[in-house]
């Protein structure tokens, strides 16, 4: 397994290890997002540094020459292919997010107004309000779309190298 493939595995594993627990917590408790975001970012950087040090030590050519193997035309081709699929993934996820927001947030706003009216509060269309928790969760779903695109990117790179290795 070459350096660049191991590097893609490292990114994929790091993203999985950090963002699966992150979203498991934050999508249930959106108000905890800021603190968890800082923690997740630090954890991601630490994991990536550790994985890349291990990768460099485990790669024979780096041990021999001290240089990182070049990104050649085959690596670039695999990366371009991955970027294309990540772009599709991001577009699909953002479109899904827009559809979700366009349908669910107005419903949440109407529910809030109805609840206020049921409690005897005089309401007008100007009172249309989106609950903070729903808005915060929506922002996290958009961030999840970005993370999914990254998973697709590194996943397609790994698949590209695996296909070459299997042949």
């Amino acid at each position, binding site marked *: 397994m*070459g350096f660049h493939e191991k590097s893609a595995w490292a990114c994929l594993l790091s993203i999985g290890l950090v963002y699966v627990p992150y979203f498991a917590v934050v999508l249930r408790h959106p108000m905890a997002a800021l603190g968890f975001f800082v923690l997740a970012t630090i954890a991601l950087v630490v994991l990536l540094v550790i994985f890349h040090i291990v990768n460099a030590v485990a790669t024979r050519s780096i041990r021999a020459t001290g240089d990182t193997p*070049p990104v*050649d035309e*085959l690596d670039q081709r695999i990366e371009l292919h991955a970027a294309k699929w990540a772009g599709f993934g991001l577009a699909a996820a953002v479109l899904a997010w827009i559809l979700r927001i366009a349908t669910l947030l107005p419903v949440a706003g109407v529910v809030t107004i109805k609840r206020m009216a049921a409690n005897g509060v005089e309401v007008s269309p100007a009172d249309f309000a989106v609950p903070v928790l729903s808005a915060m969760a929506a922002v996290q779903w958009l961030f999840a779309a970005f993370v999914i695109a990254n998973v697709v990117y590194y996943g397609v790179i790994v698949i590209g190298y695996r296909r070459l290795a299997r*042949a």
Partner: protein
Amino acid sequence: MHKAEISNRIRELRFKAGEMTQQALADSVGVTRQTVIALERRKYYPSLELAFLIADSFGVTLEEVFQHQSPKNE
């Protein structure tokens, strides 16, 4: 469009060049060993630039390294 079949003699030429290793060839043309392996297994067709570099590293012409077989119409 029919897909062309491009074969190569990289493996054979490496052995003729004093049993040159895949890594030595990769270093001489500025690619990774993985790319040389992919080329030998015909899982990847190189750019013209890389094809010329490979031919130069063996001191032969491009045609002696890469052979093009016209696609057959079925």
